[in-house]
C-alpha cells in the first residue's frame, strides 16, 4: 500500500542487521512480467529477506487495451467480442455477463431455450476455466502431470464449444437477446451429456487421487495464504476465493440471473478440512467441487432444453438501449463479473465500467502475501486464479 514496507515479526527497513556491524538490506525482486508463476504478464515487485517476503507490490497494465474506451466507440453488439478477451479462459461467462447487463438495461426478455443454452455453455466454460486453475495451480506446486490431464479434458470442452459457436477459444457467441446460433443438430447435446458424465464420475476422482489429496500437495497448500472471511470481504474478493474463505455466497444463487434458479445444485464453500478456512487448499478444492456442480447444472439444463426460438430479436446490427444506468453482476468462473453500463439512449454505451473479479481478488496479495515465503507467495497467487486479460482489460 504505502511506500514503507510492512513490518514482519517486528522487523522492517533498517532493522535487518543479522550480524552486528554488517549492514544488510532487503532484496528487491521483480517477479514478472515474464515469470512462469504469474499466469500472464503480471509483475509483482517483491521486497524479500532471504525467502521471506516483506512487501508485495503488484504492477499492472501490461495487457491494458482500455476496452472501456472502446465500448464508447462501438455499438452494443460489436462489443461482445471484447468481452471474450477479458477472461480468455472462460469467455462464455464474460459474454453472459455483458449480454445480461445490456438486456437488463433494454428490458429485453430472452427466450427460454436461449437461456438454457447460455447456462450450459457458460458452465462448460467455467469447467474449462477451473480445469486451467487446477492445472496451473498444480504446476505452481511442481506437479506437471495434472496439467496435462486437465488440458486433455479442456480440449474436449473446446471441441464441444467449437461445434456450437465456431470458435475454439474466443466465441463471440452470445448477443443481446439470445445466442448467435442454435444448438447444432449433430448430436451435440448427447455428446455434452456424455462428457459431463465422464468428467464427474471418472476424471474428477482421477485429479483428486493424483493431486488434491496428495500429501506433499496438502503440505504445500494447507495453512498457506490464509484469507479469512473478513479480509476477503474487505478486499472485495469474490467467487471461489470468497467461498474458499467460508462465505456462502454465489451470484448464481443469491443474485439470480438467467435460469439458474430452476436447477438443483449446491454452493461449495471451504471448510478448512486440511488446515484453516481460507487457505490455498480450500480455494483449490472449492474449484474442484464446483466442476462437479457445474456438471450437474449442465446436465439439468440440457436434459430440459425447451423448444422454441434461440433469439429474441432478428439479428439487427444495431441495438438501441434506452437511457439509464444499471450495475449487473454475474458469477464468472473467477468471481463476480460486473458491468456498470450507462446509456444515453444512443447506439453506444456512454460509459461501461467493468468490475472484473481478478482485479479485486489480486489486490489481496498486498496484504496476505506479506510475511510469506516466496514459494508460498507463488501458491497464493496460483490459488487466486487470476487472468491478466481481465485485470488489465
Amino acid at each position, binding site marked *: 500500500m*504505502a511506500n514503507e514496507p510492512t513490518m514482519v515479526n517486528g522487523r522492517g527497513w533498517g532493522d535487518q542487521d543479522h550480524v552486528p556491524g554488517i549492514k544488510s538490506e532487503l532484496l528487491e525482486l521483480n517477479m514478472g512480467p515474464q515469470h512462469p508463476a504469474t499466469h500472464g504478464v503480471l509483475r509483482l515487485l517483491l521486497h524479500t529477506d532471504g525467502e521471506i517476503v516483506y512487501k508485495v507490490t503488484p504492477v499492472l497494465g501490461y495487457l491494458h487495451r482500455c476496452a*472501456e474506451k472502446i465500448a464508447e466507440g462501438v455499438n452494443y453488439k460489436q462489443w461482445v467480442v471484447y468481452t471474450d478477451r477479458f477472461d480468455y479462459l472462460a469467455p462464455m461467462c464474460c459474454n453472459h455477463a455483458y449480454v445480461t447487463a445490456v438486456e437488463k438495461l433494454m428490458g429485453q426478455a430472452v427466450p427460454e431455450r436461449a437461456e438454457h443454452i447460455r447456462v450450459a455453455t457458460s458452465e462448460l466454460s467455467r469447467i474449462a476455466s477451473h480445469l486451467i486453475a487446477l492445472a496451473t495451480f498444480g504446476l505452481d506446486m511442481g506437479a506437471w502431470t495434472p496439467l496435462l490431464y486437465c488440458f486433455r479434458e479442456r480440449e474436449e470442452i473446446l471441441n464441444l464449444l467449437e461445434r456450437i459457436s465456431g470458435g475454439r477459444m474466443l466465441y463471440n457467441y452470445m448477443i443481446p437477446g439470445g445466442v448467435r446460433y442454435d444448438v447444432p443438430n449433430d448430436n451435440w447435446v448427447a455428446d455434452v451429456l456424455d462428457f459431463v458424465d465422464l468428467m464427474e464420475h471418472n476424471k474428477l476422482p482421477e485429479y483428486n487421487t493424483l493431486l488434491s489429496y496428495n500429501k506433499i500437495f496438502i503440505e504445500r497448500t494447507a495453512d498457506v495464504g490464509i484469507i479469512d472471511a473478513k479480509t476477503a470481504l*474487505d478486499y*472485495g474478493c469474490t467467487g471461489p476465493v470468497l467461498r474458499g474463505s467460508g462465505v456462502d455466497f454465489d451470484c448464481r444463487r443469491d443474485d439470480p440471473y438467467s435460469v439458474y434458479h430452476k436447477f438443483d445444485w449446491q454452493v461449495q464453500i471451504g471448510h478448512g478440512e486440511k488446515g484453516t478456512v481460507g487457505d490455498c487448499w480450500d480455494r483449490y478444492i472449492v474449484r474442484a467441487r464446483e466442476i462437479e456442480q457445474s456438471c450437474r447444472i449442465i446436465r439439468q439444463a440440457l436434459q430440459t432444453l425447451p423448444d422454441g426460438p434461440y433469439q429474441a430479436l432478428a439479428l439487427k446490427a444495431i441495438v438501441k438501449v434506452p437511457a*439509464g444506468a444499471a450495475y449487473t453482476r454475474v458469477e464468472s468462473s473467477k468471481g463476480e463479473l460486473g458491468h456498470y453500463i450507462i446509456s444515453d439512449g444512443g447506439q453506444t454505451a456512454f460509459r461501461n465500467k467493468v468490475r472484473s473479479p481478478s482485479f479485486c481478488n489480486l489486490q489481496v496479495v498486498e496484504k496476505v502475501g506479506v510475511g510469506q515465503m516466496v514459494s508460498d507467495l507463488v501458491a497464493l497467487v496460483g490459488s487466486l486464479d487470476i487472468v491478466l486479460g481481465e485485470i488489465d482489460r
Partner: protein
Amino acid sequence: MEQNAIYELLAGALGDGALGFTENPLEPWAAVETAKVAEACRFLRDDPRLDFDQLMCLSGIDWDGFDEAGKGKSVSILGYSDDGQPEKSDRVATGDLGVAYHLYSHALRHKFTLRVRVTRESATVPTISGLWSTAAWHEREAWDLLGLKFAGHPDPRRMLMEEDWVGHPLRKDYVMPDLWNGVPLQGQPYCANPFPVESGGPDKPAGDKPAEG
C-alpha cells in the same frame, strides 16, 4: 431492506449532505454531497441495520455530453477518414465528473448505489479506501483513466497506464497523443497496406523477399 428505507436512514444520518434519491425500476440511486461521501459510506458500512460489508464496484464517470443524447462519444475514436488519417475533434469538455459506488451487504442481502458529482476543475473526491480496502485499486484506476483525485488516498499512482503517461484516456475530450517516449501511437487503419506499394501489386509489398538460409 427497501432502497428508499435505506435512503431515509442515510439522509437522517447525513442531514443536508444527502442530495436526493432517484427512484427508477432499473437501479435507484442516491446522490450525496461530495465532501460527505466518506461519512456516508462509513455510516452505510457500520450501521447494523444496513451492514454494507462489500464494495462491489466503484466507477468513475465523465458526464460530459450525457444530456445531448447520442453525442457523448469519446472524441478520439471517431474513426478514420477516407485517406486513412484518424479523425480528430477540438471539442473541449465542460461537463462534470462523477463517481458511483455500488454497495452490497452479504449479511442482509441488499444493495445500494451512491453517486457523487464533482466539477471538472476540482475533480477531487474523498477516498474511501480506509473503509473498504478494495476501493484503493478502484480509486487508482479512476485516477488513472479519468483523472479523479482521491483526497487522502495512501498510494495515488497510476494503475494501468504508464507512470509518465499524459492525460486520462476515459475523459470524453481525451485525444491520444501521437508520440509517447518516441513511440508512435496513432497507427494506420489496419486494412491498409502499411508498406509502400512499388512493385509486385497490392498484396506483395516491396522489400518483402523470402528469408534466405
